[in-house]
């Protein structure tokens, strides 16, 4: 059970990070004054 929960947590975190990454690639600007380098895999 705990293994399943751990896997779910890790996968959810990854999904959330992909969501943040996509928000940075879209036409909207990042709120902060610094803009990280967009990874090559997201530029395609």
């Amino acid at each position, binding site marked *: 059970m705990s293994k399943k929960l751990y896997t779910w947590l890790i996968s959810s975190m990854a999904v*959330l990070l992909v969501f943040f990454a996509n*928000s940075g690639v879209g*036409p909207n600007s990042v709120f902060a004054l610094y803009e990280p380098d967009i990874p090559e895999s997201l530029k395609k």
Partner: protein
Amino acid sequence: MIKRLSLRLARALGRQLPASEGEIEVYAYGLEIFLGTAVKLLLIVVISLFLGIFWPSLLVVLAFAGFRIPGGGVHLSTYSRCLFIGLTFILALAVLAASLPADTGVLKSMLLLVALLAVCTIIVWVPAGTDKKRVTDPGDIRRQKIKTGLFFLLWFAACSLFIHRGQSTYALALISGAAGGLFLVTPWGYRFFSSLDKMLNGKEVSA
């Protein structure tokens, strides 16, 4: 620092899943955006609570981000500069809003002036890109102008409501936050922050 930390955390996450090198890069990029924004917002909350200007700061951030996110604008080259200059910029606007006495007439004039700047900025410069990211698709450009325009209407209504209710500090916070956010979208904002960046680059090289 945020870049390195994000990459280390992303690698650790990648080992658990497991994930490819490309996926780890995407996680690191997402983490960099999340951590960078979270650290900055947390510091704004803590410092503004300490200074007793939490609500004006929150309104400055809302107005600033509301124009900045769909409108784009200038970015600095390093996170530490962004953190220090961004914090100073936001908190200075909040301190001004909290300490300047402004009567209704002055507030109405300021609101009209910033509204005029907002309309010009939306028509001419939104969405303002950077070397790293430029919006070129006509459909995207139109969508970003509409999003910024809708936020402009919401911002104008909120400012008018605060002025009508005599809450000058809140109205001034929204007006100054918008002026700050819009300034970054204009060519003057680009010129100012690019010069600042170049000046700091020069100091880092000579140090």
